[in-house]
């Protein structure tokens, strides 16, 4: 009677010790959580949330620094998905942020462009091609409509147009 109790208890203690040791010595897999959150974000890299891209925002959510309602392009659908993943309440989009808008694309008026190349480093997904002294253009298939290229343009030749291909 006593032997099995001792044997089972010692096995349990041994396993417990091993697991505790492993959990303390190995690094926590925070990356997996961040990746899961990142997968639910729309990847526009627009930085409207206040972080320099979708993954940094995902990191901030995982670290508990940011709320889940700071993504205007994702809108209610993204908030709902994040709430489901993280087991939190569904909340409305942060009132300080612009409301969700239909998908847009940046369009450079090539006649106006002076080839200053200032919009190139602003694009988070390298969707603008061009070079100094040469007219630039936006590759539609890569543009996420983040509007980050608009501010640096000194001649205001970039405008946002509706992404018509989505409905085609």
């Amino acid at each position, binding site marked *: 009677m006593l032997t099995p109790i001792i044997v089972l208890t010692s096995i349990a203690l041994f396993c417990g010790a091993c697991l505790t040791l492993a959990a303390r010595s190995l690094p926590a897999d925070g990356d997996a959580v961040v990746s899961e959150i*990142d997968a639910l*974000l*729309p*990847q*526009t*890299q627009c930085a409207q949330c206040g972080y320099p*891209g*979708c*993954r940094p925002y995902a990191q901030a959510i995982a670290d508990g620094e940011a709320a889940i309602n700071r993504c205007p392009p994702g809108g209610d659908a993204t908030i709902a998905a994040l709430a489901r993943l993280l087991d939190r309440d569904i909340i409305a989009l942060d009132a300080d942020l612009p409301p969700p808008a239909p998908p847009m694309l940046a369009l450079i008026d090539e006649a106006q462009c002076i080839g200053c190349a200032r919009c190139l480093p602003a694009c*988070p*997904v*390298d*969707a603008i091609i061009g070079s100094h002294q040469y007219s630039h253009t936006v590759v539609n*298939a*890569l543009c*996420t409509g983040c509007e980050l290229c608009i501010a640096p343009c000194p001649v205001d030749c970039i405008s946002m147009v509706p992404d018509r291909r*989505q*409905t*085609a």
Partner: protein
Amino acid sequence: MTTAATEDLYRLPGGIRLPSFKEQSRGRPIVDIPVPPKLIIPLRQHAGEPAKPIVSVGDHVLTGQRIAEASGSFSAPVHASSSGIVTAIEHRPIADRHRQDAVCIEIETDGEDTRLPDLSPITNPFAETQQTLLAAIEAAGIVGLGGAAFPTVAKLRHAIDTSIDTLVLNGVECEPYISCDDALMCASAADILYGARILLTALDLPHCFVGVESDKPEAWEAFRSAAEIDADDRLQMVRIPTVYPSGGEDQLVYLMTGREVPTGGYPSDVGALVHNVGTAAAVANLALTGMPMISRIVTVTGDGVARPGNYRVRFGTPMADVAAAAGGYTESAKRLIMGGPMTGLALTSDALPVTKASNCLLFTGPAIQTSREPERPCIRCGECARICPVRLQPQQLYRAHQFEQGDTLDALGLIDCIECGCCDLVCPSHIPLTHSFRTAKQQRKLEVYERERASRAKERFEQRRARDEQRAQSESENLRALKDKASRDAIAEILARKQPNKSDDD
């Protein structure tokens, strides 16, 4: 000539026998509709990329003149349907399921209908090379006339690239009310067969099945008495049972050959190429007259028009002009449907132009306006699954759509739905199944598009960040290396140089 009896055919799973309502428009000769004062010719009459205009406002154009060229290999050129002055090139509403409007060229006709002088018929198409024939078909703007308006040359090129052994001419026309193919077969069976022989030559194929539905005995007789059918033993007549939707491309191939088109595939995946009889007639017309595609036969029918029948209509003719030429509206005219009652598209205006895809204009009175009973919950009777010609489970698909389960929709084969409308008809709860599948398909497409776009953006963003980090790191390393070097060699050198100067001063 050989003919196959109906009994030799494979059996379609599901399908339904429908009342035909074809008598209204059948049996009268085809009448040419006069050229309207204004033609509105959309540049997007076909599946694929819209054509690019090559004329400008104020230009005088002739009948058959090319006014827009194909953009890329999956497109088709557009020609002036009659002579006149181009008065506008702008976005106009069109009859299309996927879009509200398209760029249209408006022509104010001059009533002369002056033809392009240098039309060149193909005098002996059987001696021409494949490339010549394909180029001629492409330049003539010929697209499939069954309703989907798929560019014919794209279909032919794809067929040449894959191994095709059978050409199928589709003269089934299984949807109620529509009889334009029937009228064409009765009037110009010889032309259709001539076109079929040209296509056989272009593709170098040994067989052509001509499928005619069993409720079209006149068309069958017209083919049998045509001289072509005896002269060429590659042509074989097949009588197709009158079951809806045996005229669907994939369904027809299965009925004739027993080969099932795989998910998301085309008949060419099982060695068959299907063309509508109207398309073959258009090819024959091109060879005989050199005239590109500028008109088609349109069934104008329903209780809403005074003289239902089949009419030859120039592309770009407003539907109101077509109705006027068909005797005008009757008192009971209430709705306008382009296509048939099963797969057609309800239109909101009769000012829209007839295009290459308009096979039928159905002006219905109250008789067809079935009092739409309220939708009730699904009782899981399974009638929709029994009737489905592609063996789907509409009730399961409907559930998955309601709960927005995209992956389940894919697993249940949403993409294989041919939107035939059979399930709607048999559903005792009056659930608009086909409509929800159509919506679901669009949503699914959008979701997949969004997902691809997001993953592309993510990849590029991460690559960019990695590059920035690497650059920052290498810059700081360079700086440190420079500093190290500077501190050791250069400073010593400068100091060494300073030293003698100092001594000079002394």
